[in-house]
């Protein structure tokens, strides 16, 4: 089992009030699965995705990723896990605006100390996978939205992570470009990658094999697509 969540609770303090963003989520995801997490806004899907992505730790409960107890790790241990195990693809791409596509893709490798020559080679290979090798010296503002998202995917892939975590990856793209991105995701899944997709669009979720629906911080339904 790749991901094992047991009794995950996340509370936020908003002013004097305590908000239960997640209450007791139990969830297992296996290696190679293609999962979509759905739910209306406020359902807790962002919170869940932050916890799955090790950007945040739960208030209570146990999160095991690849048998490592993530829920009790400190900042630096979490950073290492994110670097090694998780590839993020964000709705707003989140590329460094002043860095070239190549440098953006190299970033995760810089933070795990990969030697420069090997780093470049891996980043180029990753950009080649998303069909952007000829654009590797362009900066994000010289690329189209779809190209930017493909750079982000190349960056997510470069370190060969256990999970690719895509948070509304098509949210800022037109339908046609969005479809292109979804095709890439499918190819990645076919190549054996585990993909977790967060979305609120039914037709995007349908690309996955399994849809987990959240409501009010709880799993409402968990079914095959």
């Amino acid at each position, binding site marked *: 089992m790749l991901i094992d969540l047991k009794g995950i609770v996340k509370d936020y303090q908003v002013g004097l009030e305590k908000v239960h963003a997640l209450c007791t989520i139990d969830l297992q995801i296996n290696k190679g699965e293609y999962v979509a997490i759905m739910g209306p806004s406020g359902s807790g899907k962002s919170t869940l995705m*932050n916890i799955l*992505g090790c*950007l*945040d730790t739960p208030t209570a409960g146990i999160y095991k990723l690849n048998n490592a107890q993530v829920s009790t790790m400190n*900042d*630096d241990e979490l*950073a*290492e896990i*994110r*670097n*090694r195990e998780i590839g*993020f693809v*964000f709705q707003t791409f*989140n*590329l*460094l605006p*002043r860095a070239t596509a190549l440098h953006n893709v190299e*970033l*995760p490798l*810089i*933070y*795990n*100390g*990969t*030697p*420069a020559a090997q*780093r470049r080679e891996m980043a180029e290979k990753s950009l080649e996978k998303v069909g952007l090798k000829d654009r590797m010296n362009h900066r994000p503002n010289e690329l189209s939205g779809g190209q930017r998202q493909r750079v982000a995917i190349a*960056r997510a892939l470069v370190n060969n992570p256990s999970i690719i975590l895509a948070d509304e990856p098509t949210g800022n793209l037109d339908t046609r470009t969005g479809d292109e991105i979804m095709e890439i995701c499918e190819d990645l899944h076919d190549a054996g990658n585990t993909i977790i997709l967060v979305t609120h669009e039914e037709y995007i979720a349908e690309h996955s094999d399994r849809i987990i629906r959240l409501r009010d911080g709880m799993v409402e339904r968990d079914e095959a697509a």
Partner: protein
Amino acid sequence: MKFFSWSEIAEGLGIAFQALKSNRLRTILTTLGIFIGVVVITVIISVIQGLNAYVKGEISFLGADTVYISRMPWTITDYEEYLEYTKRKRITEDHYEFVKRYATLDEAISLEIATRRTVKYGSESLDDVIITGTSEDYVTTQNVVAEYGRFFTPSEVNFRKNVCVIGYEVASILFEDRDPIGERIKIGANTFSIIGVLEERGQVFGQSLDNMTIIPYSVFEKIYGNRRSLEVQVKARNPDILEELIDELIGIMRRARSLGAGEPNDFSINQQSEIMDLYNSITQILYIVLIGIGSISLVVGGIGIMNIMLVSVTERTREIGIRKALGAKNRVIMWQFLVESMFVSAIGVTIGILISMGIAMIVRSATPIPVNISLWVLFLGIAFTVTIGIFFGLYPASKAARLDPVEALRYE
């Protein structure tokens, strides 16, 4: 434990460089305080060092191993004190003889008495020439050398011969290209024959040492009387026994003056270092005040850096979030911002040192003060850079490092 990898350092420098490049004006303005501080401090240190070297060079004619017995100290800082000194008895030829008889640690002892007179040769004349009466040992105690001819002998002193040794300037003005040796000049109403010309000695604080004529003190007294207080010049056998020599001379002078056990000295024993000490005590205050101003400027500059780094952290909140999401640890983010603040501070220090070098060059060419920016100023510059960069960058950098990745990624 490994703190930084080279690729992290390179990444930090790259980020700093790019961030500063895209905010050129802001960066330059930020460094203003630093560079003014550096200029003030380095220029002041260098000018004062140059002045020290200059003053030391200027007073070196006094000789580091020669002491001067005279009625008053050379350095008087108080008018009341000065009035007391004027009541002291003269130093006379008898004292010179007494010291000469009893001193044991000396290499040579001379005496000096001086006035100013007009010197004439034929139709040429030169006003305000220093007329110095002394003994044959003046050559040793004052390190003067006769470039042409010779200095006078003990017998010329004893027999009160009207001979003189003229300074370089006197020779060149009165005689131009002619050979002065054997010629006769008039000092006031008295005629002297020239037996020697001194080597050129240059100036001290703008006063020429070459505008002088030296005659035997016995002749000087015969012509000008013995009412002036004179100065006894004692050269130590070697510079290491200067203190012992001074003690010995105090003993001899007290005996010569028949002073009782409780009575204070009514003479002064002067030396070159005394002038240096007075000079140092004056510049010390200047030094402290100006270094203080420079340091304040550096601190203000450092606060400027801190301010701009805080702005930079806020502006790049999202970037920090991205980097953290991709696996940057807290210390890596911290390092990134520290590098940036050190970079800003380095720019300020570099500009400051370059401008200081320019100012040093101008001062050097416009004044006789040998101002140089020494190598250690450069090391000091590097030390400033690191210290200011780290000290004032620490708070913004740790603020950046502690950012919550979720919050940072959400930041617009």
